[in-house]
């Protein structure tokens, strides 16, 4: 699937000074098994590293994780930075514990959507759901000529 022009390639990483590596390993494993090609930048990734990599790899989406609570600071102006660098249309997801303290998820979601993220996830989100959304969103953003009439059915996660 990977490398195929109709494939799904994403750049994954943990943003900022955050060194939580466990979820990153799990995500890589589950996304890959779900039929998504993952370019994993690991932990402590800057906005520019995400964007440089997404450009170089012609990725369909950037998946930003933040577990340590500084998401609000680290993700500031991410979409604007993408636009400056010519990636204005890329699918942009963010997930994790994005703010300091327990806050209503709806408020956090609204805040990060305002920053330009297409979707915002809790740390306990069902990853099968993320995979399905990711494929559909990437398909929607493909240049018209390359766009699938229907998204490919999501590969089943192996039991």
């Amino acid at each position, binding site marked *: 699937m990977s490398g195929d022009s109709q494939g799904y390639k994403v750049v994954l990483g943990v943003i900022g000074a955050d060194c939580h590596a466990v979820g990153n390993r799990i995500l890589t494993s589950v996304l890959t098994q779900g039929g998504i090609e993952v370019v994993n930048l690991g932990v402590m990734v800057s906005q520019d590293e995400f964007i440089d990599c997404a450009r170089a790899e012609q990725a369909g989406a950037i998946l930003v994780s933040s577990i*340590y609570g*500084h998401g609000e*600071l680290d993700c500031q102006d991410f979409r604007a930075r993408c636009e400056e660098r010519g990636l204005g249309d890329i699918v942009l997801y963010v997930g994790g*514990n994005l703010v300091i303290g*327990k806050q209503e998820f709806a408020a956090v979601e609204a805040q990060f959507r305002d920053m330009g993220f297409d979707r915002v996830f809790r740390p306990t989100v069902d990853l099968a759901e993320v995979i399905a959304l990711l494929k559909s969103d990437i398909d929607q953003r493909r240049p018209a000529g390359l766009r699938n009439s229907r998204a490919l059915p999501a590969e089943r996660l192996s039991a």
Partner: protein
Amino acid sequence: MTDLNNRRLDAAAFDAERGEVLQGWATGAGVCFADALRVQEALPVEKRFAVALAEADAQGHTLLQPRAGVALVREHVALLNGLSPYCDVLPTTIDAYTRHNRYAEAQEGIDRSRAAGTSLLNGFPAVNHGVEGCRRLVEALEKPVQVRHGTPDARLLAEITLAAGFSSFEGGGISYNIPYAKHVPLERSIRHWQYCDRLVGRFEEAGISINREPFGPLTGTLVPPFVSHVVAILEGLLALEQGVKCITLGYGQAGNVAQDIAALRSLRRLANHYFLNAGFTDYRLTTVFHQWMGGFPEDESQATAVICLGALVARQARATKIIVKTPHEASGVPTLEANQAGLKATRQMVNMISDQNRVDSPDIQMEIDVIEAEVHAVMREILRLGGGDVARGAVLAFAAGVMDVPFAPAKANLGKLTPVRDNHGAIRLFDVGNVPLPADVLAFHRDKIAERARAERRDPSFNMVVDDVRAISASKLVGRPA
């Protein structure tokens, strides 16, 4: 690694290095060792960490300690004083920018927190607040306070906080590199922590006992007990060499009760064995148990149950101290109230278990035997690699994968060792990587994993590991197929 070795830092070289360290940020200029000694000497006995630990150890009590840190001094004082009635010793958790010596970003976090009226940092930026800000903090508290962080190069942080009256300092050259950094060479972080330990040694030589606590849980995720034990022993040896006298070794709850009790009991015994063998006799050893460090359930009642299991096991194993989680754990930094709730639940459980019979069973003894065999095998190879020098041995061991921490972000870590739970939830090795464990121990791990695989009618694979990592937050210990 041309000049790294496990020898006490030379006094002149230390002083020269100190000059550089204190120039790392403007607040470094506020540090003066003579003043620092006076501040520490003036601390009343109830604010001295080493005293609290020694008393708990002597009386068989278990101390409770939360985690907490916010951006501004006044708010942090209020937070700690809100926790103080519910705990025995206080923390100051340092923010993630400071941990990476990114003091400019920490300053921006301070400024924006002031503007926002709420902390946008995940901890207290002690370096930016300087000796003066930290002293205001210590003076406003009524219990001993410890620096808790995750900083590969904590030299300036140590200088500032110890000068301000903090009386315990967490971390170590391995435990604050492998799980907390990406590109920091291990020889560099070990060398920087020799500096921190030597600084503590200087306080000890002046009659001021500062507690040092290597960080036990590492990545907090399916860490086999022998892995964290080896790191604890290595960092203990490195600290003792620099003159540290008061050491607290840690272990993070793995989930299986028998394995956790065995781990905490064996930790004290193994550490004493290696410390005494290395010729150290004048030290005070205590233990700290970290409640579950992995993913928590979102529901607060379920999270409290996870906290309670940790409290029970810690007390059954007679840990000197417990690091307490909160019902908000799944959502990140907790509120004061959530932090109090975790402490209250923990206290109730500890109190109910306190007087009860010592727990012992053949299962616990078997786990102790396995852990001891594993630790001895790895330590033997580390000492061989280092030619008897644990500093050099540690660096070479990590490079070769002889020591390997699962799920660690550091490039210095090979990352081949892969743990998985067995059918009873104890942590075993799915892939030993390059760690030189004896054949009988490896066979034991294989058999235990095979037993689970049969029960689940699936082959062992990384999927099992993924399921295990997500199990507790999904209300199970072992990640079974649905």
